[in-house]
């Protein structure tokens, strides 16, 4: 490993999208409801209660393990991790320790050089989410905490990678790939607030390692790591040492700060959960069939639709996007790929909206208008914006804004007018100045108020000038 190389490993916690919690029948659909309304004696940790494992949570976790090529042992086991914290109702968390659901495996990402890179996994295990604390009195002056146990007991998988990542960008790509795969598997919903939490271990080769805790989005991970690399490099440059410590990511400022308390040497006293004897899962594994996953779909988009690798990668990087593309692709997949990947996505990002909010029928009408040549790429973008921002039909938008590609006579008369108004430019063109043609075409487009097809204008202007 070359000196100064960045070394990153991630521990990723994802909430599994089951109907009920990991150990009780409380609904996981709590986000729009008041505090402590989705709890029962079990997830409140009332005396006398016992955990009962949700079959679907195990099935989901096994799907993930299979998708990432993990080794799945014959039996796995839950253990208790003992520690006190006000959000932890039982004084321990039920998790997996020395007998996890899955070991090894890997996730393939696009490397910095554009090729493929295998990021090795250490393990995947299941565990329960704790409750949520609200601090009263603000920040460090909080006088007491308020606890909401709605989240307590929601199933999580923790995916631990080997320290195989070499840049924040690779970390982001890994998370994007993970998210896409989990969504393809139908086990995860990134759209749910708090459904992803990441701890990142980062070091510069030859120096101590820092752990950044509790980052809650994959953009946050890239930011936190970028900040941390700068901070660690500058310490090293000044001859100072990087402390082995735990830091927190401050989302609002994009920085990391040292945890207030020094790293406590935890003694979690793990031991097997006595209410949950070992779980026999190996026999299920063969019965689990996986759907088409992102890599396979990308290959298919290239072979079936003839898409470029970049378009195929973009369109398969998100399940909803891939499904949207396939619904709309119709008999002109290349045109649709361009419109979805290069134009629509940008407009959605700008509006911070998801693909799910796009009206498929109206988007299809827009594509049909473009394909028929009724509108140009240029005016199509204007139509798309109106489609996204209003409930209006594309045909009506085109008519209201007068965006239809205009008849020949108007283009012809505009060209005639421009040629007579701009003798200098005409002379420049004839003297071999290429720029003059662009200038003249611009003037024609101006006169037609953008309704003309620029390629058409260019071709006919050249013809007129040749006469």
């Amino acid at each position, binding site marked *: 490993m070359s000196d100064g190389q960045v070394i990153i490993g991630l521990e990723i916690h994802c909430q599994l999208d089951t109907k009920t919690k990991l150990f009780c029948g409380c609904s996981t659909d709590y986000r729009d409801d008041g505090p402590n309304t989705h709890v029962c*004696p*079990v997830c*409140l*940790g*009332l*005396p*006398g*209660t*016992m*955990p*009962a*494992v949700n079959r679907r949570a195990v099935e989901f976790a096994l799907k993930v393990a299979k998708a990432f090529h993990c080794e799945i042992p014959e039996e796995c086991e839950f253990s*208790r991790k*003992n520690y*006190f*914290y*006000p959000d932890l*109702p*039982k*004084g*321990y968390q039920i998790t997996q320790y020395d007998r996890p659901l899955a070991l090894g495996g890997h996730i393939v990402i696009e490397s910095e050089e554009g090729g493929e890179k295998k990021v090795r996994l250490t393990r995947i295990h299941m565990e329960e989410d704790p409750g949520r604390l609200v601090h009263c009195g603000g920040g460090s002056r909080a*006088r*007491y*905490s308020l*606890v909401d146990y709605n989240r307590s007991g929601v199933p999580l998988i923790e995916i631990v990678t080997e320290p195989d990542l070499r840049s924040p960008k690779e970390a982001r790509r890994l998370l994007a790939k993970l998210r896409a795969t989990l969504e393809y598997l139908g086990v995860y919903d990134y759209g749910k607030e708090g459904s992803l939490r990441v701890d990142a271990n980062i070091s510069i080769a030859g120096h101590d390692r820092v752990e950044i805790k509790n980052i809650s989005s994959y953009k946050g991970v890239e930011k936190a790591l970028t900040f941390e690399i700068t901070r660690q490099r500058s310490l090293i440059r000044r001859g100072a040492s990087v402390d082995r410590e735990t830091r927190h990511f401050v989302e609002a400022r994009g920085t990391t700060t040292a945890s207030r308390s020094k790293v406590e040497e935890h*003694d979690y*006293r*793990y*031991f097997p959960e*006595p*209410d*949950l*004897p070992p779980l026999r899962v190996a026999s299920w594994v063969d019965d689990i069939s996986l759907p088409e996953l992102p890599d396979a779909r990308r290959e298919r988009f290239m072979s079936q639709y003839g898409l470029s690798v970049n378009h195929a990668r973009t369109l398969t990087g998100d399940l909803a996007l891939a499904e949207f593309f396939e619904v709309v692709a119709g008999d002109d997949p290349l045109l649709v790929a361009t419109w979805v990947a290069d134009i629509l996505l940008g407009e959605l990002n700008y509006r911070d909206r998801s693909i799910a909010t796009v009206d498929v029928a109206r988007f299809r009408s827009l594509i049909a208008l473009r394909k028929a040549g009724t509108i140009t790429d240029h005016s199509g973008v204007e139509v798309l914006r109106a489609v996204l921002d209003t409930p209006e039909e594309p045909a009506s938008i085109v008519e209201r804004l007068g965006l239809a590609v205009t008849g020949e006579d108007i283009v012809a008369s505009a060209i005639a007018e421009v040629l007579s108004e701009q003798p200098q430019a005409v002379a420049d063109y004839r003297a071999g100045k290429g720029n003059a043609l662009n200038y003249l075409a611009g003037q024609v487009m101006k006169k037609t108020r953008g309704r003309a097809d620029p390629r058409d204008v260019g071709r006919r202007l050249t013809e007129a000038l040749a006469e």
Partner: protein
Amino acid sequence: MEDRFNAYLLRSEDPGLDSGPLAGRTVAIKDNISTAGLETTCGSRILKGYIPPYDAHVVTLLREAGAAINGKTNLDEFGMGTTTENSGYGPTLNPVDSSRVPGGSSGGSAAAVAAGLADLALGTDTGGSIRCPASFCGIVGLKPTYGRVSRYGLIAYANSLETIGPMARTVADVSALYRVISRPDPRDTTMQGRPYEHDPVASVRGLRIGIPAEFFGAGVDPRVSAKVQEAIETLAGCGAVIVPVSMPSMKYALAAYYITCTSEASSNLARYDGVRFGPGGESQRSWHDAFTAVRGEHFGEEVRRRILLGTFALSAGYYGRYYGKAQTARANVAGDFERLFGSVDLLAGPTMPTVAFRLGELADPLSMYLADVLTVPANLAGIPAISVPCGEVAGLPVGLQLMGRRFDDETVIDAAAAFEAEVTA
């Protein structure tokens, strides 16, 4: 009737139903079993005022069977004791001799039945907590096979060892109560779907009964040994074949038991922090200080001792030597039983090494632990075991213990019924 022995922590007047297998019968419930709407303290000050919002599965079954639940009985705090002196609400006295302890930890349930305050009672048995008080109070008590009675609603002390079980004055009543409480419950996923649906047949004819030498060794009162040997001869007289056997793993059983139960307890009792139930702490202190204050103030000394022992046994650097070794010893106890049950149908010996102690006699914790030496093996292996009265020593009851194969509670109960029929005839 007046509760002169402090058997109850709370008495209630539930008439029960007009019909059902337990209609017209009063049942006392050990106070570590959750009852909706009835304060459930586990004998601990840390649960003072706690009213569960749900019924334990066995309580639901009792109500459906028509039983008249007449109160919650005293116990050693969280079941941690062999005398019912370690209750946060004062000791229970033995109805046979009120200068003696009733045994524990289900001492309140045993005393209620022995004193005639209840027809039947539910106890719980982690390391002998049903059989010990049954033996000391002269009644019948069964520790069922692990996984045959739902523990949902039983406030956990040591989950992998304990089970709820029936206590009564006769084997027939024990069997009747067991039938009611041994029904499936999806909330306890250690249940193995083997309900008890048996009617006792008072016979031991042709059964092979093993007598482990270790159950008559050092520490067992010779008068108790002699009484139990008489009982074994009675069984032989009824047609049982008596076979001397040996259980080498016995010497590790008590240590394995105490390490396992304290380890599990140290974790089970972490939830008593004053936040969601029980007497609160000061929310304005930082959490470790607030939790430590509440737990230090409201847990009794024996509970704190066991929490510390368990915390130590699980802590970094000691886990292998204590918890790990204890699991090996536990597996060997189970292995010994399996081997023995290959050639015998039952094992017999004394339930307790002695008769009931005087109040205050077992002041030293270790000497109290040693009294459990004959009852813990059944819990380590999860097998059924019953204590049935077999006479008296110096006017105090002695219990005969019969142990059987896992899920063969039926044979254990049949043999106890045969013995009972023979001695009461």
